[in-house]
């Protein structure tokens, strides 16, 4: 009897375990399907999936409720605490589309490659318009993973405008927009609609005002690379401490962003003129060696944070909030955000610009050369069953009405129109300003991803940044006056890197070129200058072995007679 019971219980357990295993497996599958079902639109509406797929394209014209899953491939982007924000609700009312955002935590390049390799595709992808992310999207377009938008563009003028030849930098147009004959796969966003909309992020070195005063250096007296080195050395030698911990002379944010921007003191851009009118990649030049050895010196003398390249943003922010970083290298908005709490608790400790620093190859009166382009591409994947509804959503976001909605909010709720200009409602402004987590803004629908897809940047044209506080505006204006004494010049020339990417050798050369940043970081941590140069030279040899000479020849041939970028500051 006992044995029988035991057998029965054992059998039940085994069946449960096996069932559990199968359920676990099948759940995975359903999870994926569920995602697709949800994204086909009408599943969320309680509708029949088959009908939703069949009728998907009609949804747009009738504003039939549709749910669209968007991958917002920007590392660190996130939603607030509410699923449906007032702005998302307003978008739904206008377009019938409910947006479900998915965010990337980690490498954006990895995400692009993973979604296409595993075919776990969103309905809409939106992400960086450069580097490996863009390469991944162009590859996806070539391999039939995306929807050709050309047949639809007549119906969506705001989208057509985003990829008008005149609104896209020439090399980028050749590489990503016009590279597929009559077909168009990519939408391009956030490029300035006019010169006054051009956004200068004010990349540079910024020092804590109180620390500069303590070491007796006027930040505006720092111009040359030697000045900068001596300034950092003085900070180090002063032996300053915060909460019992030593102050680090120079630091940055995650993974080394953007401590390397001192490169502009050594060379003008990634490709430089060899002196005979032909271009070479800067990595192959003497200037690159000098730049590397300069940073090696900073590392070996403890002037640059040893953890700069391995730290995450939370660790970097912690150091800034503890007051441990004297000079920060990054763009100014990031520095203002990160230092807000510390400055509030320690008045007079604001970060102020260092310099302006001398630029290699640029005359003293030359305006700052900035590549003010769009930063975002958006595509519709082949999994999307509601192409028209998705385009209607994107077209609305790119319209003036959509732009204002996602940047300023709902009129009467978030802002009022005063003398034809949007003005933030005081209670909203105060609420957002008091919230250091940024959640209050996100819960209204700001900064959760819609802005990325809002077409050409018309921030100034349509009314300015109504959410920026006066102190921040004053700080930015002050930094602009110091760092841009000659104003800015928006680059419109060809970027050699985009041309190189079209060379026949690029496939074999790319893996070597992808190593440049990693190898530079390795070089600056070596024990001697000779060892640093050895590390650099090893990669140079590999680049030569994998077709660099032919690739750069291709670049020079194709850019003959064309205006090429040889001076470019980070932006």
């Amino acid at each position, binding site marked *: 009897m006992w044995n029988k019971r035991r*057998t029965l219980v*054992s*059998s039940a357990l*085994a069946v449960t*375990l*096996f069932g559990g*295993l199968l359920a676990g*497996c099948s759940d995975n599958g359903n999870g994926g399907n569920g995602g697709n079902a949800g994204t086909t639109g009408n599943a969320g509406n309680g509708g029949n999936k088959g009908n939703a797929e069949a009728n998907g394209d009609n949804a747009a014209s009738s504003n039939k409720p549709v749910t669209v899953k968007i991958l917002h491939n920007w590392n660190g982007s996130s939603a607030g605490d509410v699923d449906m924000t007032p702005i998302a609700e307003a978008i739904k009312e206008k377009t019938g589309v409910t947006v479900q955002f998915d965010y990337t935590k980690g*490498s954006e*390049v*990895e995400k*692009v*490659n*993973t979604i*296409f*390799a595993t*075919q776990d595709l969103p309905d809409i992808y939106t992400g960086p318009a450069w580097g*490996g992310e863009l*390469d*991944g999207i162009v*590859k*996806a377009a070539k*391999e*039939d*993973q995306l929807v050709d938008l050309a047949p639809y563009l007549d119906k969506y003028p705001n989208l057509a405008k985003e990829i008008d030849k005149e609104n896209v930098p020439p090399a980028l147009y050749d590489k990503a927009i016009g590279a597929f004959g009559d077909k168009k796969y990519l939408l391009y966003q956030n490029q300035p609609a006019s010169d006054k909309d051009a956004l200068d992020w004010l990349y540079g070195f910024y020092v804590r005002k109180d620390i500069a005063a303590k070491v007796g250096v006027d930040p505006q007296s720092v111009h040359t690379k030697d000045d900068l080195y001596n300034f950092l050395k003085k900070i180090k030698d002063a032996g300053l401490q915060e909460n*019992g*911990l*030593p102050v680090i002379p120079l630091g940055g944010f995650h993974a080394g962003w953007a401590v390397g921007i001192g490169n502009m003191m050594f060379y003008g851009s990634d490709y430089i003129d060899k002196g005979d009118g032909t271009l070479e990649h800067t990595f192959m030049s003497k200037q690159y060696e000098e730049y590397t050895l300069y940073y090696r010196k900073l590392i070996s003398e403890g002037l640059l944070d*040893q*953890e700069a*390249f*391995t730290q995450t943003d939370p*660790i970097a922010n912690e150091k800034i909030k503890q007051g441990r970083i004297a000079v920060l290298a990054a763009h100014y908005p990031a520095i203002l955000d990160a230092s807000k709490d510390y400055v509030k608790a320690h008045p007079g400790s604001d970060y102020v610009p260092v310099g302006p620093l001398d630029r290699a190859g640029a005359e003293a009166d030359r305006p700052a050369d900035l590549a003010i382009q769009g930063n975002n591409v958006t595509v519709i994947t082949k999994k999307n069953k509601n192409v028209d509804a998705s385009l209607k959503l994107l077209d609305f976001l790119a319209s003036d009405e959509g732009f204002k909605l996602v940047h300023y909010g709902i009129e009467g709720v978030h802002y009022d129109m005063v003398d034809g200009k949007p003005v933030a409602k005081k209670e909203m402004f105060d609420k957002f300003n008091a919230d250091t987590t940024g959640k209050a803004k996100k819960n209204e629908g700001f900064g959760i991803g819609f802005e990325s897809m809002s077409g050409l940047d018309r921030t100034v044209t349509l009314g300015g940044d109504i959410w920026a506080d006066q102190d921040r505006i004053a700080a930015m204006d002050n930094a602009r006056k110091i760092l841009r004494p000659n104003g800015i010049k928006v680059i419109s020339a060809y970027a050699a890197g985009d041309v190189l990417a079209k060379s026949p050798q690029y496939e074999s050369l*790319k*893996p070597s070129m*992808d190593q440049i940043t*990693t190898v530079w*970081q*390795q070089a*600056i*941590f070596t024990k001697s200058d000779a060892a640093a140069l050895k590390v650099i030279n*090893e*990669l140079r*040899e*590999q680049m030569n*072995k994998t077709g660099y000479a032919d690739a750069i020849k291709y670049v020079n041939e194709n850019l003959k007679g064309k205006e090429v970028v040889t001076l470019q500051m980070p932006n």
Partner: protein
Amino acid sequence: MFYLFMLPGLVWFFLFSYVPLYGIQVAFRDFQFSGGFSGSPWAGLKYFHQFFDYYQSSRLIRNTILISALKLLIGFMMPIILAVLLNEVRNVKFKKTVQTLSYLPYFVSWVVVVTLMQRLLAQYGGPVNNLLESIGMVKDPIQFLNNTSWFYQMILGSDIWKNIGWNSIIYIAAIAGIDQQQYEAAKIDGAGRFKQIWHVTLPGIRNIAVILFILATGSLMSAGYEQLLLLSGPATASIDSVLDVHVINAGLNEGRLSYAAAVGLFQSVIALVLILTVNRVARKVSDVSLF
């Protein structure tokens, strides 16, 4: 009924160890999103050539083997030592407590372990450096992480700390299976505690140790990607670049899936050869082998 209990395990192995073998073909194809595993064009040995032409391939292989060998030689001994020591502890409560505490770290993810290390071993403000300074053991704080001089100690130390308890379980079980009469006989023959360990305990777990050693040689070409990915950095790149991390970077960050598959396959083939070789040697030397 006995076989029914095996079924979930067999299904697991089939799904996660055998089905993925289908994907090996990617190493010999130019993987395309549209073609997938079976529809992409054949590329022959192109990606294997690419790997061996890569100027850092020998360094990657050397680093991988060195780190794995150190883990194998030192990390392999530690659980045996812990198991033997625990077997000698007579206070049951203390023994159980140590046992439990020693295998808790196994369940902590590498992300947490490395974050703990970063906090505890921080050069400035880290408790370990504070302690060393306060008792006068060091004058200046030590940079434990991102430092070639301390890299191997950190890798091995954290690996042993994380796995020693869990890996000792099988030895503790083997020791528990040793006939107590052997200990009594040894005592009658005048053997002390150390002699008993040497002549009874260690021979009692010899077979299981040999089998585990053979299995462990299979991972000689794999140094553990999570730990190395998290503890590596530009300062230690010359000794921390290993095949596992290279595969992840090439496949996911650079989108070179066929290349990554080729390097992964190379690792697996070498691992298979190593297992077969060590198995053969073990059979000849000790009559203990896997098959």
